């Protein structure tokens, strides 16, 4: 048996590496789109820098240095994804520890992969489809509180939807394998569609913003999260797996 500390530390380490590699993915696929979006923003506002700290500044103060340069923000990307990866990896490890016995597989690796798949659907995919992420230059600072709350709500709803899917699939399992799968899909989709209809619509993309750039950015963002969760799932599966060969080698 592994201790809580051992399970947690494995999650933190796997999360750190997953975050670093997700940051690399984001740097390669996402940064060009972030730069393009900022160029559009600056062209629209006549050279106003992209910096929250300048919000009080008048347009005449455009000479003012931004708090963090663009190069700093590009490097900060790796800090952000790494710290996020550590946090997520740790929470994932705690979830694995508490939920392991509820997962009906004898294989710890499959359990970790299943949990990662559930987490990706609930925490990434469900929020993504309702409120797709936006590049800089899109989004009204006035509505940030509302958008933050609805975003966090979609995460809670996403996890609830996965839970509903699993609960329904276990109930339907008595009617066969197809019913079991159907139960999962029904539980998930009914919850998600109902929530999507109730949650407010938010669309702050300016009419003039290029649709291609918008979606290139969104897919880069989705790819970043997919990289993180894939590596977290397979990494944690490898980290908790017991290797039968270990004992033979050591003996």
């Amino acid at each position, binding site marked *: 048996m592994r201790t809580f500390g051992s399970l947690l530390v494995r999650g933190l380490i796997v999360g750190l590496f997953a975050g670093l590699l997700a940051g690399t993915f984001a740097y390669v696929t*996402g940064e060009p789109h972030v730069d393009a979006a900022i160029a559009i923003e600056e062209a629209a506002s006549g050279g106003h820098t992209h910096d929250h700290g300048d919000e009080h500044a008048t347009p005449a103060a455009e000479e003012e240095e931004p708090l963090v340069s663009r190069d700093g923000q590009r490097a900060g990307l790796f800090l952000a994804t790494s710290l*996020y990866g550590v946090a997520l990896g740790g929470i994932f490890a705690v979830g694995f520890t508490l939920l392991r016995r509820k997962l009906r597989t*004898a294989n710890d690796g499959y359990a970790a992969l299943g949990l990662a798949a559930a987490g990706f659907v609930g925490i990434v995919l469900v929020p993504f489809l309702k409120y797709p992420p936006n590049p800089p230059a899109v989004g009204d600072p006035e509505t940030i509180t509302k958008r933050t709350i609805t975003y966090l709500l979609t995460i809670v709803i996403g996890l609830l939807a996965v839970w509903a899917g699993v609960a329904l699939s276990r109930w339907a399992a008595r009617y066969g394998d197809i019913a079991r799968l159907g139960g999962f899909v029904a539980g998930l989709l009914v919850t998600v569609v109902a929530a999507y209809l109730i949650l407010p619509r938010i669309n702050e993309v300016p009419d003039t913003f290029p649709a291609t750039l918008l979606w290139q950015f969104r897919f880069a963002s989705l790819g970043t999260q997919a990289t993180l969760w894939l590596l977290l799932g397979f990494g944690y599966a490898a980290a908790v797996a017991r290797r039968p060969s270990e004992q033979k080698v050591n003996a």
Partner: protein
Amino acid sequence: MAAPAQSVAVPAISPRLLVLSAVSVALLLLLAYLVGFDQGAVSQSGMFLHELMHDGRHLLGVPCH
């Protein structure tokens, strides 16, 4: 495939485990908050960390300005 009893490699649920879990998750959520939402209140760095992690926040899909 190994027998379930051997493969379940987690400690049994106990009050101590639940407290450890809750404390860990709370600290880790604070870390995630620092990346995703903080605007200086937690980091005490003004907007510096917020601006530094600006690109990461956008690309991780967190809503931002």
